[in-house]
């Protein structure tokens, strides 16, 4: 991510991070969509993290705009971002669901 930002001299912004729960391969797939302003195009970077211990490094120190996307994915999927100290459980999900400890967007969650 830092290489990308430096190579375009800071003219990029993070569009969003989309999380997908792949049941068949048993991973969480994360897609980072980055928009390059000078070219006018959007590119996607894919990573996956195993479901048993989902931890990914945070990019909030290089790109502070990832705050809302990372908070949403932590709340709805349970993927923990190492280094981001603003993650909270009741961010999007209402408090009665969050207290049960379920992460709503997983495929096996009953809401």
């Amino acid at each position, binding site marked *: 991510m830092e290489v990308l930002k430096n190579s375009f001299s800071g003219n990029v912004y993070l569009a969003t991070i*989309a999380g997908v729960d792949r049941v068949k391969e048993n991973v969480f797939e994360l897609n980072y969509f980055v928009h390059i302003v000078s070219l006018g195009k959007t590119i996607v970077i894919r990573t996956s993290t195993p479901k048993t211990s989902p931890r990914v490094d945070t990019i909030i120190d290089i790109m502070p705009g990832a705050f*809302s996307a990372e908070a949403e994915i932590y709340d709805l999927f349970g993927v923990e971002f190492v280094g981001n100290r603003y993650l909270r459980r009741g961010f999007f999900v209402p408090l009665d669901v969050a207290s049960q400890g379920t992460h709503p967007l997983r495929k096996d969650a009953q809401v």
Partner: protein
Amino acid sequence: MDTESAVKDATTLLKIPISLEIPIGPQHPAIHEPVMLKIYADGEEVVHAEINTGYNHRGIEKLMEKNSYYKGKFIASRVCGICNTVHENCYTRAVEHIAGLEPSQRAKYIRVLAMELERVHSHMLINAIMAEVIGFDTLFMYIMRDRELVMKAKEVLAGNRVLAEIHMFSGVRRDIDGLKREKILGLLKRLEPRLRYYRKLFEEDSTIHSRLAEVGKLKPIDVLNHSLVGPVLRASGVKSDVRAEDKHDAYGEVPWSIVTRPEGDSLARMLVRWDEALESLEMCKYILEHLPEGPAVVDEKKLPRTFPPGEAYARVEAPRGELVYYVISTGGTNPYRVKIRTPSAVNVINSAFSYVGHSVADVPVILVSYDPCISCMERVTVIDLKGGGEKRVPLNYLARRRC
């Protein structure tokens, strides 16, 4: 339980010993939906701000996985009431990419007409709200009265004033004939001098200038780092617009230009919106005079029931910013995952840094200039920490306080 945890939270986070936490509570008459902004103020100056969301979460992404693609289109319309046509457009284009359908030329022009009419009425609405927040109620009433002309035009075009369900996969659902065209053109001609007058008023009036100029200044590098989109981006000098970059539907053929301003404060953001509204009006008139011939309406009985596997990422320029839909399909009648990222989610949540250093009375002005559409996003709550109690202060109260 909420109050105690809030107090505990605030006292542990408090870095400055003498500081007042002011909640701009979820229920207030100035903004349509509930939002909580936690502001830590030292005297009259804001030192720290936090945003709490989560009051309006309706579980739409999970709901779309359980319903078919066609019902998903109606659900996508209802994510937001003001920008419903652009939500439909984004979802429709994403599914058309997966299924390999292509709309006709006339259908593309009618889609652009619906979206541009919506842009005009949405910009008029947010400017009216800004006028109300700074106390200029008369202007608010007059802008809303003139907005009725646009709602009537939408009713002539689509059959309903607010929710124009005009998109369908590979085309549109209704068509225009000569009589409707004349009606819409007449309404637009009546609207144009009013829009020009309001734009001139915003530039020259001294009340608006004293409240809005130099408030909430954002540098371009800050805006890009924090992923703010839409008129916020364009009012800081960055030339970026989804309509010009992707050239989807008929935007490549209708002549228009991107509007930017170099200053980056709240007044620049509102003026960018008025200029965009005038551009949209010109585009609507051009489309009505240059409609191509051909079929536009889709026969809904002949559309496929199941869709092939694939994925699609579609972007569209909503009146508030850049709206993104990411649809994944693995075959079958229901989508596997639909991800919606609305512009208000990034504009409001990521912008907590921009309140620092301003006085408390400037906070509503900055918030409204980002154009929060909380039903797209969520709420922001403000917590008041003085004396250990939670006091909900309406936004109007804060807006009218003078130092």
